[in-house]
């Protein structure tokens, strides 16, 4: 079994109102010196295969087809 983590983040240049709101809230809590906050998503998956190459290819397909909207988001895959 392979454990994988997929991280989905907004592309540069895409406005992130949620990140902006979090940035403001952190400032209100007294955390200063924050340049920017961008919010993303993390998916932890367990795959039944033991084949890392196959797993990576499958995960890439999952990202392209569903997990990320590649119009506005980038994704990265890491295997445990």
């Amino acid at each position, binding site marked *: 079994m392979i454990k994988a983590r997929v991280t989905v983040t907004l592309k540069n*240049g*895409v*406005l992130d*109102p*949620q990140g902006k*709101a979090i940035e403001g809230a952190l400032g209100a809590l007294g955390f200063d010196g924050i340049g920017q906050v961008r919010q993303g998503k993390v998916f932890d998956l367990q795959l039944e295969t033991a084949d890392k190459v196959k797993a990576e290819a499958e995960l890439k397909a999952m990202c392209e*087809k*569903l*997990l990320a*909207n590649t*119009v*506005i988001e980038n994704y990265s895959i890491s295997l445990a």
Partner: protein
Amino acid sequence: MKSAVVQLPGLNRDRDMIAALTKISGKAPVTVWQTETEIPDVDLIVIPGGFSYGDYLRCGAIAARMPVMQAIKAKAEQGVRVLGVCNGFQILVEAGLLPGALMRNASLKFVCREVKLEVVNADTDFTRAYAKGQVIRSPVAHHDGNYFADSETLRAVEGNGQVVFRYAESTNPNGSINDIAGVINDKGNVLGMMPHPENLIEVAHGGSDGRGIFASALDVIAA
């Protein structure tokens, strides 16, 4: 003209859409469930608003991958008119039938109010009942209507006359780029819009500004 309304778990504006189509065309639309792989012979397919799959992952993302969407894609390629309203618009962009993406409202708040829409392109199958530049009223109710497209896509969409509706008179409720409220595909038969024209079609609604979209798409414009 015959119409169909798509139903998916979590969509809740289907009843309003069925009522509007029935009243305007004089014929009740057929309903099509998400698992169906074939759509009956109709002239207009409508994906109504709501919260398909609880807006999980991204609004419209899961609905866009259901079997019925493949059938809708095939019909759209044949030239059948497809209208997506609110969550229906989000589903159409997630399915790749329309360019761009719909993101969280800039205010981060759900907005439920009336806006003004400028009919930017009155030369489409969905807007023939209006005049170019006409400003109409329309209700909106959404949390993720902030239209976004990268600069290249935006140039193409603007240049091809694919922006059909723009929020007018400073009523943009969601921060959408260039005040875009509704977009059509380059072929001109698939329209997506965040506002709800089906909720402003008769006196009981306080106006009938939205009626023209259905009258155009169903070819029932009064002479």
